[in-house]
């Protein structure tokens, strides 16, 4: 079919060219040029084997046409992560600025709305339970449900988790599944290694889907650990969707307030690199266990 169409196309172009040449509207050179272009075989089937692909130009590239002082614009772009020096098409952004913005937002939305993959959890050997929020929609609209385990999860945690350990580690998707998949493979082994070599007794880490920070209080009430730490995905910005926070608390109870938690945030490859964070968190955990306090109470003891 494709070939027949191509043939037909050539015939049509040829007759049009001849008519134009007859009327003196086209030189022989022009006619030859068009015909040679029409005779060229264009690939019909996209070549999926090719290594070629479309990518974004580097972010630091100056996009203004004919700037007054190109070096000044380039220098300004280095001073801020803001989207400046991006030029315009009329009053609208250039095509690449628009597409880059869409890409950054898409990555952020996927981090929020997609789940951590089953394959990842298996690979990391993590047991998985769920909060009382049954879906992402419910999780986002009902913060209260993300703060406690589902009935089934309570049963699972009660039956399978070791009780009375010193430290229980939770991996919680929170607002970014991407942060979990990007950081946990380096962070978790470093943290486990650090704690074990310090002689600290750690329960088997497990994963909580659709969870918020406070869910650690519910888990702690079941496993009765001294300290509970949540490694949780932060709300993605357009800059990065992979930022992770660690929230630690010593023996939470019903009177616990936000200020009782010790927080280390901005864990990602552009912030505190995950392996480094593992070592840092080990030190913080040791301090909390020694002081038997976290958050503001810990700082007051320092």
């Amino acid at each position, binding site marked *: 079919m494709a070939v027949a169409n191509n043939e037909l196309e050539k015939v049509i172009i040829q007759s049009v060219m001849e008519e134009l040449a007859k009327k003196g509207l086209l030189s022989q050179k022009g006619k030859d040029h068009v015909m040679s272009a029409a005779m060229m075989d264009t690939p019909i089937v996209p070549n999926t084997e090719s290594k070629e692909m479309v990518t974004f130009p580097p972010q630091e590239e100056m996009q*203004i046409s*004919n*700037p*007054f*002082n*190109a070096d*000044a*614009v380039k220098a*300004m*772009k280095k*001073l*801020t*992560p*803001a*989207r*400046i*020096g*991006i*030029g*315009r098409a*009329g*009053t*609208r*952004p250039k095509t690449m*600025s628009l597409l880059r*913005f*869409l890409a*950054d*937002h898409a990555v*952020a*939305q996927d*981090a*929020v709305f997609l789940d951590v993959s089953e394959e990842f959890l298996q690979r990391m050997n993590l047991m998985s339970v769920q909060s009382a929020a049954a879906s992402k929609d419910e999780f*986002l*609209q*009902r*913060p*209260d449900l993300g703060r406690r385990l589902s009935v089934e999860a309570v049963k699972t945690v009660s039956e399978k988790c070791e009780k009375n350990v010193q430290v229980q580690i939770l991996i919680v998707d929170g*607002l970014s599944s991407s942060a979990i998949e990007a950081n946990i493979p380096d962070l978790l082994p470093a943290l486990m290694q650090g704690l074990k070599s310090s002689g600290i007794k750690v329960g088997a880490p497990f994963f909580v889907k659709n969870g918020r920070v406070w869910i650690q209080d519910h888990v702690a009430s079941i496993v009765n650990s001294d300290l509970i730490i949540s490694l949780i995905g932060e*709300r*993605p*910005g*357009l*800059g990065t*969707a992979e930022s992770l926070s660690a929230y630690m608390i010593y023996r939470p109870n019903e009177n616990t307030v936000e200020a009782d938690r010790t927080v280390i945030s901005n864990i990602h490859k552009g912030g505190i690199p995950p392996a480094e964070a593992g070592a840092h968190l080990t030190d913080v955990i040791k301090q909390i266990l020694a002081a038997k306090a976290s958050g503001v109470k810990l700082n007051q003891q320092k």
Partner: protein
Amino acid sequence: MILKAKVYNKIFAFQSFKEVMAKANEEKSGDELVGIAAKSASERVAAKLVLSNLTLEDIYNNPVIPYEEDEVTRAIYDGLNLRIYQEIKSWTVGYLREYVLDHKTTGEDLAHISRGLTSEMIAATAKLMSTMDLVCGSKKMRVQSHCNTTLGVPGTLAFRCQPNHPTDSIEGMMASLKEGLAYGSGDAVIGINPVEDNVETVTRLLETVKNFMIKWEIPTQNCVLAHVTTQMKALEKGAPVDLVFQSIAGTQKANDAFGVSAAILDEAFALAQHKGSATGPNLMYFETGQGSEVSLDAHLGVDMMTLEARTYGYARGYRPFMTNNVSGFIGPETIYSGREVIRADLEDLFMGKLHGLPMGIAPCYTNHMKADQNDQEMGTLLCAMAGSNFFMGVPGGDDVMLSYQDTSYHDDASTREILGLRPLPEFEKWLEKMGILENGKLTERAGDPSIFDK
């Protein structure tokens, strides 16, 4: 006061005016979260029907939070013009909606009755209005204010240039400011959200911007959006503050959580009058948004939209230069989707204007909402058609300090050109002098921040 309605074969009975107000709302996740939203589409309409039949006197007699218990309620009632209220108290809410929309009713008429309306009356009216109703009603009302320049001049649309930087870098902030000015953004105010809320940072930012305004003779106002008490300390030490900023909410409990009260705001306003750098008489800049009371657990069982109206009732006594609404900033637990945020923006614009406030809108969104750039652009155009006095201007629409998306410098220029609106008059002259704007359109030179680097 009839609190029962029949919608075809179903009868709905409500227990209180407060319940009717909540259930008459269009769908929003914050009302669902608190558990006060209508349980069905029919119940929602029944509540609207009940509301349409209530008189303004019924509403006057039933504030959603008692006068004795809440400073916001007191501000609303103490500021009311009782003579005008007496003249219109027998009107039903349904009649008030039609009065707002009637061709014979002018913006002047609405400014007059505004003084006799409590915030709950204004919210009730907006609850009976559709999208186009809200645009028609808002468009009639033009509220002007003056700080160094006049905001709200007919035929104009202004923008706050918002050159935030994630570490308060002066050079980084300046780069974004120059880019914004080169697109014609910044006539409402040059307003920076600082990361560090302290006197040194605030003063440094204020002085830098003020010096730049003087050097380039830019007719606008400056502001650094730290906590009001930090700005007051900076003012005391002589920092050049044109506008004093504060976020406010619709209950005393929420304002307590923000660390503000009428006493603090009174003091701030007096200080701006005595020590501020602007001409005035309007010297305050407020930000508000549906859902802040819910996220602070300070809603007292009142719906988000009514609380937002009460915030405007609280604000109007301070005669602000600008009131900016940021309903889309708060998060999906209060406003879930693009559709919800567009609705909230239009409600807020209408309610703010009917309170006599110089309103601007930030049709913004965060990354954990079901909203995107298309929603934001629709919201922006609708609010511009409805006569918003101003919007924000953020480089590329991406605020790298607050991590949310708002109207971009490009959107600012586009909205003006689409609707044939101009910058504020003094600022337009300045843009022409700089060669950025010609006959209301960006020139070839526009959009280039290096024009300031001679």
